[in-house]
């Protein structure tokens, strides 16, 4: 064990008992899947997430569950584990199950005569490359669920041994000779461990299982050492799966936020110190998670929706810290930590929309230089506007409470918004132009009116209108706060809407589905909030002048 790994284990593994759980024994076996090599725990979590819709099954680890799919497939055929939620699809399949019931057995689906017909329809649509509506997106998910479950059950998806002759690793049914025996030993050790800890909900790995796994991995590596996994990356990735740095980060941010809010009421130095300690801790954990992820993936963490939803709030907090140094504006950190808590909780709550698996990139994206410059900078711009948006929210609240009493806070808050907007405008302009330069360099087209770049331009125009209005005094503190909130809708459109609502254009590699109702709800609620505060304030001002 090398030093770095040892240090990590010491630092981050809250190990209460030294005995290994069943899952832990198997977690770090490398598996080739979806174009890269990953730890078995990642594969198991992704598979369970897709098929069952959760990363655990009845409180049991994905690793353990998925491994039993290989060992006792028949039993799992008759257990309801395939998540099926789309009402229209249930109806099309003539499946009658209560609305509260979300899972169905694989057996029922394989036996259903309508499944092949519906999959055929999906294929026809795909052949015509038509955009899929939510119903067919559900069919597509069902297809992947059944396909993956079948491939795991048969062992075809379980590619554990490198092949010196091919780029494709050997799957379980393809194993021969000593590799086959080594795998059988693992399977036997696994079953024995369950039998030994009979009845226990948390079976322990027997020493035989641990030895069998170690020997299996050694032998697999010996097949083609240069093709085998980088074990350091494997354990780091496994560590990321277990440790959830982003979850701890939002907990720390939330603690900091609570102390900050409490601090508003009674200004005491200790609470300020505590708030900062929590925020710095959250910030560090957040950074730590992103660094590990970048190291594993070998690229900056801005290549899909999930990654940007993690990266943007980090940058918001960073801007919050920097601006706070100069402005001494307490609202800044409150706003920044709210952004971070919101985004990071979202990544935990919506795993199907914000898919966190590390996928191989489309060929055109495989340029770390351009990813770093164009994408990272654009997202830095989003971060600055997000901060301004959250500040706007807080400021509107103060306007609603008592404009006069908080006049000083509002004034500094408005300065912070103005400053954030300036940072955002420069970054978004620079990032968009760099996108043009990249497009020019790779496609020969500086500006092609691609929806993603067009919406970046629209956001930029919106914010420029706001800043220009500020110059001549049309936009005062209140309008600035309201504008920061409303104009952020354009960023949401550029960031999320183009990929998830419009679904067109060259940036199709970032496309996904889901969550539209929640995101539009978020936008609508904020617009209503602005409208409400504006009305109340207008009435108040009218009464005062009277």
């Amino acid at each position, binding site marked *: 064990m090398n030093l770095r790994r040892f240090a990590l284990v010491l630092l981050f593994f809250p190990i209460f008992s030294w005995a290994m759980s069943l899952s832990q024994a198997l977690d770090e076996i490398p598996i*080739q899947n979806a*174009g*890269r*090599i990953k730890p078995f725990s990642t594969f198991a979590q992704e598979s369970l997430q897709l098929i069952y819709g959760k990363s655990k099954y009845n409180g049991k680890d994905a690793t353990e569950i998925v491994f039993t799919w290989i060992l006792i497939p028949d039993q799992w055929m008759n257990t309801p584990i395939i998540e099926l939620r789309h009402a229209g699809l249930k109806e099309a399949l003539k499946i009658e199950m209560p609305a509260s019931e979300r899972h169905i057995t694989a057996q029922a689906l394989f036996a259903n005569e309508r499944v092949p017909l519906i999959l055929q329809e999906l294929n026809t649509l795909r052949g*015509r*490359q*038509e*955009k899929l509506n939510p119903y067919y997106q559900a069919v597509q998910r069902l297809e992947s669920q059944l396909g993956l479950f079948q491939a795991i059950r048969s062992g075809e998806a379980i*590619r554990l041994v490198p092949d010196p002759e091919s*780029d*494709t*690793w050997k799957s379980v049914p393809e194993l021969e000779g000593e590799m086959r025996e080594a795998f059988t030993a693992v399977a036997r050790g696994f079953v024995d461990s369950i039998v030994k800890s009979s009845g226990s909900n948390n079976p322990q790995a027997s020493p035989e299982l641990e030895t069998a796994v170690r020997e299996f991995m050694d032998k697999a590596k010996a097949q083609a050492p240069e093709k085998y996994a980088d074990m350091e990356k494997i354990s780091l990735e496994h560590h990321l799966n277990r440790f959830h740095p982003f979850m701890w980060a939002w907990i720390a941010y939330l603690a900091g936020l609570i102390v900050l809010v409490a601090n508003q009421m009674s200004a005491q130095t200790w609470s300020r110190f505590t708030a900062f300690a929590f925020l710095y801790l959250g910030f560090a954990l957040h950074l730590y998670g992103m660094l590990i992820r970048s190291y594993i993936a070998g690229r900056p963490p801005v290549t899909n929706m999930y990654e940007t939803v993690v990266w943007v709030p980090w940058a918001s907090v960073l801007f919050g810290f920097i601006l706070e140094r*100069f402005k001494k504006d307490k609202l800044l950190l409150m706003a920044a930590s709210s952004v971070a808590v919101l985004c990071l909780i979202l990544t935990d709550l919506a795993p199907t929309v914000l898919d966190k698996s590390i996928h*191989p*990139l*489309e*060929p*055109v994206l*495989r*340029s770390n230089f*351009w990813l770093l410059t164009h994408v990272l900078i654009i997202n830095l711009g989003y971060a600055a506007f997000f901060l301004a948006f959250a500040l706007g929210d807080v400021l509107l609240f103060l306007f609603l409470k008592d404009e006069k009493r908080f006049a000083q806070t509002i004034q500094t808050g408005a*300065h912070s918004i*103005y*400053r954030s907007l*300036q940072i955002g*405008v*420069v970054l978004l*302009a620079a990032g968009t*132009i760099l996108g*043009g*330069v990249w497009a*020019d*360099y*790779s*496609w*020969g*087209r*500086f*500006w*092609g*009116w691609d*929806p993603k770049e*067009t*919406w970046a*331009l*629209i956001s930029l*125009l*919106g914010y*420029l*209108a706001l*800043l*220009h*209005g500020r*110059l001549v005094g049309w936009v*005062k503190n209140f309008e600035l706060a309201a504008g920061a909130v409303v104009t952020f809708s*354009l960023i949401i459109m550029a960031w999320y809407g183009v990929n998830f609502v*419009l*679904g*067109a*254009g060259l940036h199709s590699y970032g496309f996904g589905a889901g969550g539209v109702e929640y995101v539009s709800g978020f936008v609508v609620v904020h617009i209503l909030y602005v409208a409400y505060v504006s009305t109340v304030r207008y009435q108040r001002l009218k009464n005062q002048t009277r």
Partner: protein
Amino acid sequence: MTKWTDRLLKFLASLKLAVFVLISLAVISAVGTVVEARYNDAFVAQKLVYHSGYMYFIMGLLCINLIAVMVDRWPWRQRHTGFVLAHVGIVILLIGSWVTQRYGIDGSMAFQIGESVRHVTVPERDLTVIASLDGSTFNTIFESETDFLRDPPDAKNPFIVQLGADQLKIVEYHHFAYRESQIIKSALESDGPAVRFQLANPNVNLSEWLRRDLTKAESQVDLGPARIVLARQMPSPTGRNEIFLVVPDKSRKLRYAIYNKDKTLRAKGELKESDTIETGWMGLKFRILRFLPNAREEVRFIPAPRSTPATTSAFRFEFRGKEYWLGLNSVTRLYLEDRVYFISYGNRRLELSFPLTLKQFRVGTYQGTARAASYESEVEVPGRGQVLISMNEPLKHEGFTFYQSSFERNEKGEPVISILSVNHDPGRGLKYLGSFMIVLGSIILFYFRGTTIFGIRVRGVKK
């Protein structure tokens, strides 16, 4: 200066106009993205929105506004540095874009491995009519760029091409249409035979048309379990399950032969419509549904709501009382007593001064998958030898830049056709200069002038 010119300058330089322009630009652009999503086609959005009159008007207004505001601030002081840089930058960027739009070339080039190509296909579409009196000399008698997307011809407002005393009238146009073809009986001896057959057992039921042009010796269809061939003379077996259908030229008889995988003859004889024969493969029965000794293909186009890879553009025209359909990038012939007209409608091709030869094309995949990780073309450039073009690594040659854009696979899934995008952009330098000035100007404007960060007064806060 008189008073009204003063006032006009004030208005043109005003922030009111600036904010109006900014918001209008934003709204038009937003409409464009919706149009693109609606039609699933970037070209339509560009034609209908981004390069529309409204857009050009607003862009013009933006330039006037920017120039006016700088005239208004004359003489410039040092404190104007950021302001001037950013605003002049925008004007330069717009001029650069205009130069690109006006004088640039943005096309594509597709070739198979081993093929040599020296032309670039561009999005502009031309309608061309070529006449031939004797079949050996050809005269172009009509050539024009068509923009049917913006101004589609219809029965009330047809697009007319005068051909001598006759009129070619384009009366219907669809930018997105599905091609549908139908095989119908023909009275002409010059049209070849066609057969519609069925191959069925309890699990499989396939029916297909097979038609042969008299110019070709055979045509075939591969149905997976079996290969069906319609030929002039009996072909020899190739070692697959095969059914040969033979109709000699000008004959009205249909003979057949069935061969197994081991090249042994299973059966042969003559067939009529609705005859059925046992193939012996998985209980499959082969049945002749229709047999036409002379048949032709009738093509029509059905409008589609949006673009898909299966759609193309097409128009319908009338000539001497008859109707014809013509799809994009195809040619149709009109036979008259003394001459032939070739009507062609397609993307314009520009000749390059040098050919490019595709030597090799490779697709790299992610381990254990068929997912493309990279693709690259090895091309032969005259005077430079072999050059590698890959994603993010274009080739520059004689003012043109060649970018790896995509590729196509054959039926077996092997990548065989490489598609490059080809570009010539005289506005590039201006656009880069403008961009640089905008970014630099904004940084100076926002960070080095009147900020609290550097202890100077806050600007932009008026009570």
